[in-house]
Structures are given as C-alpha cells and as structure tokens.
C-alpha cells in the first residue's frame, strides 16, 4: 500500500503547477539559463586556458646560454654536472652556428630580415630537457641551479611569464569556483522561492491532503518534480547557448591557438561539460525545491 507509485500522476501535477504560475516559471527558467550559460562559458574559457598552459608546461625546457669562447673541457664538465641534477632528462649542445640556423628556420616564415644580418649574434647554449609533467616551480629551481654553474652566462626556462601564467590560472580556478558557487546558490534560491510561492498558493490543497492522510512524500513529489524541471530545462537551454557560442566562435580561433600552443584545436571535454551542466541543473532544482518544501511543511 505504501509503495504504489504514480510517476505520471506526479508529473501531471507538476506540469499543472507550472502552468498555473507560467510567468513565474519562465522567469525562473530564464535566470537559470543565464546562470548556467555564464558558468559554462567561464568553464570553457578555463579549460582552454588550462589546455594551452598544460601544453607549454609539457614542452618546458631550460636554455643555458654559454659564455663566449668556452673551452671544450669546461663544456664537458658543465654538461656532466647538469646531467647529474635531479629532474634533468637530457642535455644537448647547440653551437652558435646551429642556433643561428634554427633561428632562421623558425622566423623565415614570418620575415626575411634575418638574411640581412652579416654577423651571428647568438650565443652557443645547452638545451636541458626536464622530466615531463614537472611543475613550473621545479623547473625554475633547476634553472637557478644551472645559472650558478661556471661557464653559464644566462638561463632561460621558457618563462617567468609561464610561471606568472600558472599563477593566473590558479587565480582563474579560484574565481571560477567562487563564481560557480555564487551562480549555483542563486539557482537554488530562485527555485526555492518559486516553489515556495507555488506552495503558498496551494496552501489549502496541501492542508486538505494532510487531513485525508496523504504522506509527506506524496505531498512533496509534485513540487520536487517542478523544481527538477525548472533546473533541468534552464540548464539545458543554458547548455545550448554555450554550445551555440562555442561552435560560432571556436573555429575562428584556430590561428590564435596555433600561435599560443602550436595546436589549432586544443581538445576540451565539451560533451562532458554540457552533460554536467544539465545534470547539475536538475540537482540544483531538486535542492531548491526540497529546501522550500521542507521549510513549508515544517512551518505548517
């Protein structure tokens, strides 16, 4: 007797509730849509930035520029010492001539000015490969250690700026989490408010339900479904907006990503993100309506 279920019945009641407060429900859904779209857009931005930075980190190496006229013995000793440093995977010597060749090849596509140089201004260097997946901080430590060695004029590890970028990425992550929490809270509150208004307008009905022996679950269910529908529909349209913006803008960003990371279309888990948004919308809707129902029934 306790277990008989009426999925269709509850759904019909929820839809009736939505129809009766159609305008309020539309406003709620629109707010959820925008909140979710904002969440989705910022998540995408974050994922792309992270993709680019990760790639940079992957390729991060250390260049140790050597003093002019370094002799072979010093060079040999220097390379051995660098190889002994923890985290270093390999060292390769690049002579002045090779450096110049590489430089010309890299830039030839962009400019011909290099042809005009009559003297090679580049120093010889050691290209140090570090263990892949190493954090910026670790690479920086190794670079500093190499910089102190005899025969090394200057070191460069692909970036103070990469370190700054990693910091910015961290900041981005924290802001994203804060923004998301704010948006999610907004959604919970707006759903909860809408459901509370619906419940107030059906106060007599709920009271009569209680008097004829309806269980709390039976009374609650249509309202929970209503909140779930608001959240899911709002999140779904929000996800559509994100998808639409993405397919409109992303293809045009290829060259930009090419320059940034050497890859015209970094992969982000788009489907996963959209699915997550929709599920989360439903969950937030249920959370908001549960909150309203609980408060309403406890007050009664």
């Amino acid at each position, binding site marked *: *007797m306790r*277990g008989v279920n009426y999925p269709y019945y509850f759904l019909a009641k929820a839809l009736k509730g939505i129809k009766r407060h159609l305008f309020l429900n539309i406003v709620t859904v629109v707010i959820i849509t925008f909140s979710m779209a904002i969440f989705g857009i910022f998540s995408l931005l974050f994922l792309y930035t992270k993709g680019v930075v990760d790639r940079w980190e992957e390729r991060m190496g250390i260049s140790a520029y050597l003093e002019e006229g370094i002799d072979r013995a010093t060079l040999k000793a220097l390379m051995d010492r660098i190889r002994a440093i923890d985290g270093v995977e390999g060292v390769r010597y690049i002579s002045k001539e090779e450096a110049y060749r590489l430089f010309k090849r890299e830039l030839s596509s962009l400019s011909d000015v290099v042809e005009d140089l009559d003297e090679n201004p580049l120093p010889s260097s050691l290209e140090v490969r570090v263990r892949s997946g190493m954090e910026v901080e670790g690479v920086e430590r190794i670079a500093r250690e190499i910089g102190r060695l005899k025969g090394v004029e200057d070191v460069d590890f692909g970036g103070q700026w990469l370190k700054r970028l990693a910091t910015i990425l961290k900041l981005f992550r924290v802001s994203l989490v804060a923004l998301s929490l704010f948006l999610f809270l907004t959604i919970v509150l707006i759903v909860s408010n809408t459901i509370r208004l619906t419940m107030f307008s059906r106060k007599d009905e709920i009271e009569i339900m209680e*008097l*004829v*022996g309806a269980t709390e679950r039976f009374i609650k269910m249509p309202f929970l479904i209503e909140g779930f529908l608001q959240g899911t529909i709002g999140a779904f349209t929000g996800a559509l907006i994100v998808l639409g913006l993405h397919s409109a803008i992303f293809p045009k960003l290829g060259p930009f990503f090419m320059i940034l990371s050497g890859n015209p279309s970094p992969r982000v888990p788009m489907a996963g993100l959209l699915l997550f948004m929709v599920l989360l919308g439903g969950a937030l809707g249920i959370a908001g309506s549960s909150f309203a129902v609980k408060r309403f029934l406890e007050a009664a």
Partner: protein
Amino acid sequence: MIRLFRVSKRYPEGVTALHEVSLHIEKGEFAFLTGPSGAGKTTLLRLLFREERPTSGQIIIDGRNLIKLPRKEVPFFRRNIGLVFQDFKLIPHWTVYENVAFALEALGTPPREIRKRVLRVLGMVGLHGKMARKAAVLSGGEQQRVAIARALVKEPKILLADEPTGNLDNEMACRIMEIFEEINTRGTTIVMATHNYELVSRYGNRVIGLDRGRVVEATERVAEGT
C-alpha cells in the same frame, strides 16, 4: 475502538473546549455526538483524527495512542479514518470527481480501482451527473455530499462526520443516513456530530451529549421520541 480518558482541550486563546471527557465507543457502533453550538463537538472530532492534540488526557484509537503517535505516522493513521468536515474542505477549483478521487490517490490506490470506487460512491450520494463540475459552483448541499463521498470512498474503519446533514434537505438527509447505516452494518464505526435532535430521536442510536465541553448525557439507545 475509540477510547478517551479524561481528555481536556484548551485552545491557546484560553477557551476550554473540552473538560475531562471520558468515553468508550465500541467497534461497529454508530454514535451521535450532540449538543448546542459551541459545545465542543467539532473539537472532539478534531482530536480523534489528530488534527489537534489534547491539552491533557489519553486518546486510544484502534489500538494506537494518539498522544504518542509520531508525526510521520499520522498519515498512515488517517488512512483508516473517513472524515466529513463541517466546512467540507473541498478544493474549489477541482472537479467533484477530482476532489473524491484525491482521497484515494493520496493513499496510493491503483488508478483503475480509484475510477471504479469514485464512480460508485458518487452514484450513492446522487452526484453522478455533476462529477465534472468544479466544487466551487455547487450548492452547499451538493458540496456536503461531495465531502461525504470523499470520506466514504476510502471505505474507512472509522467514519467521523461533523454535521454531515447540516446543509441537506430532509429527503437528502435521510438518504445519507441510510448510507451511513448501511456501511455501519458492514462494520464501520461511526461518530456523527449533529445538533439536529429530530434526526437523533428518529434513529435512536447511542447519544453522547456535550454541553460546554462536558459529557452531560450518554445513553446506549434513546428510547423516547420527541
């Protein structure tokens, strides 16, 4: 079936609506609860289905102590009780059918069973033809019959009816009494509040008389007519 032991009810505003009422109503009885307006009839019925709790005293119904009944158990307790409210408590924008069906939906009765039982009970109270009307547009007497139908459709073990004939003409009142008698002979215990003394004397059931919150008269069967 229904046992009250020194039950008092004082409303927060200070009105003492019931004063040390002790009663025992057996399974299968059909008792009238009489008394002038304000005697405490409605209050007593509200205590019996746990809409209110007594200020003091004990109430045992169908083996359950209502004082100790946890909140969560209240709906399950109410399932076995049919209620006819003095003010009907219908949902005005629902149809007659919906108002009656609802009492069964709330219990999780299968839909086919609901349809069958609602149609039968609406036929009993003579509202077959009006089942698609909104409750709000019905006359007082019709609304009362909807309220009665909603109580009967549950086929309850106990029927608590608060002035169920108050808005009905004589003929319809008799019809309702016939229905009550019939379900009573099939085993339903009935407590019916009324101040219609003519009705009380005509049927000669047990009478519990209330006056200003006290039991003033408790007979097994009223012999004399008026």
